């Protein structure tokens, strides 16, 4: 089964999600080509060529792919899809944006956010905010269009030596144009890829108070996240949101501070290896999923935690 995997990148670096989605692509059992569509993205293509298991990298380097708009990306992918039995991409906001267009153009159902490959045509995906798992079978002979929840797969190693082939741009449908990006700048690791995540909820009471979490995060080289309540209240920007409709994370350690634990939030973090909850309300549902719970006033406990970590040399 020939598979095309669409790489996740920002023209400068290849995102970890690509290597993880590659593991899902390889599980389908055929050769996997990786498409890098961007502008000035040669370095990204070279990085993709090093992922173990990749047969070849296809680089489409053109101004119209600089911001990976859905309309131009879908046109390109559909043009390339003829030779493949399946097209995959990470279920990032970028993949979620263009993949359903690809599926509609190919007249097939998309299989969203798979968490396991159970056979060449059988997949499991979460529904109802992860409160149920649905196993689906794609029809024989039809092309598959799949997005992959990257936290559910291990990253492929970077020991490969695939070649990079370039293709020309597809015709630009000219439906939309890029205006601007307002991206959060941070020296901390990316939320989706961090080994440790420290998240704050409504209990933080203000955006300023997130500095308390940032100090702990810096000791642990962690990313900072938030619940929907904290984002809605304007404490932190939207890209901090962990949950059913925000980012799904599965770090080694997730520290939830002042988060009650609505099912929509749990959907985004319950696959973390170890969960810590700090909350003054001992009835908070977050304690039902936490490995270690501390019932305490966060404004006392969080500075204490930072102090203790510092004392222990973190």
């Amino acid at each position: 089964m020939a598979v095309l995997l669409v790489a996740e990148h920002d023209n400068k670096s290849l995102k970890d999600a690509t290597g993880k989605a590659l593991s899902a692509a390889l599980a389908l059992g055929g050769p996997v080509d990786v498409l890098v569509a961007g502008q000035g993205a040669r370095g990204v293509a070279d990085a993709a060529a090093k992922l173990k298991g990749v047969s070849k990298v296809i680089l489409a380097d053109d101004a119209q792919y600089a911001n990976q708009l859905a309309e131009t990306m879908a046109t390109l992918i559909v043009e390339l899809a003829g030779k493949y039995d399946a097209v995959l991409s990470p279920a990032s906001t970028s993949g979620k944006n263009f993949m359903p267009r690809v599926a509609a153009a190919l007249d097939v159902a998309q299989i969203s956010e798979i968490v396991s490959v159970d056979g060449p045509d059988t997949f499991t995906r979460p529904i109802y905010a992860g409160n149920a798992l649905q196993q689906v079978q794609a029809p024989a002979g039809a092309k598959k269009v799949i997005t992959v929840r990257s936290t559910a797969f291990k990253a492929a190693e970077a020991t490969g030596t695939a070649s990079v082939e370039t293709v020309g741009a597809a015709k630009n449908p000219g439906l939309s144009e890029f205006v601007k990006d307002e991206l959060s700048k941070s020296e901390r690791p990316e939320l989706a890829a961090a080994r440790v995540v420290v998240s704050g909820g409504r209990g933080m009471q203000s955006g300023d108070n997130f500095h308390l979490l940032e100090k702990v995060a810096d000791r642990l080289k962690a990313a900072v996240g938030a619940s929907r309540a904290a984002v809605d209240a304007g404490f932190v920007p939207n890209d901090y949101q962990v949950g059913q409709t925000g980012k799904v994370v599965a770090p080694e350690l997730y520290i939830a501070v002042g988060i009650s634990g609505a099912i929509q939030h749990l959907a985004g973090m319950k696959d973390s290896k170890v969960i810590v909850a700090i909350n003054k309300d001992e009835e908070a549902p977050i304690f039902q999923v936490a490995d270690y719970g501390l019932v305490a006033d966060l404004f006392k406990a969080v500075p204490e935690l930072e102090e203790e970590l510092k004392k222990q040399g973190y």
Partner: protein
Amino acid sequence: MKVLVPIKRVVDYNVKIRVKADNTGVDLANVKMSMNPFDEIGVEEAIRLKEKGVATEIIAVSVGPKEATETIRTALAMGADRGILVTVPHEVEPLAVAKIIAAIAKAEGPQLIITGKQAIDDDCNQTGQMLAQLLGWAQGTFASKVAIDGGKADVTREVDGGLQTVKLSLPAVVSTDLRLNEPRYASLPNIMKAKKKPIDEKTPADYGVDVTPRLKVLKVSEPPKRKGGVKVKTVQELVEKLKNEAGVI
């Protein structure tokens, strides 16, 4: 301009769902149903465009069971002008929904379609994008801000790294994210008035769409449950356990 708002009847977001014992699906008997929250945001956005004088007519469309009439009535009570209910005998996949709505769009000629970014039951996040593709239109997904100016729409999108703004040629499809607006509650007089607003009843056959599912659901199961852990008494004990017991720091 006309605005089309597709809405879905789903299990209320507050309900803790249960998987059926025979693993064929989720138990929907006697469960509270509501409008998909993202679609509610779509209805609200359309109403605000009408209040600004940008939209002239709002049509709420639902593909679902007969009971989805209630969902359309809710949209009408909020401020939509009329409804179209396309009744289907079973769950319909996003591709078929997109085909039905595309056919309605061709008949009605809206300049804007506002969908929710995903339904909170199947969590697919597909219909809006598929619809845009089928119609050959631009799309602005996961919108937190929409500004219409002449034949263009500036849409600010919530993306993984922050925000992105794109300019779309109209007609276009916009899908809503949480922070686009806060939907209003329908007032009692408006609920009464909504009862008189027209709802057309259609079937997929009226639009020539085959709604047979493409994917076969083999089973629906409960995810592995996380066991609750222990309570620690102090921050020092927490750090000690994370270091020596869990080994994660």
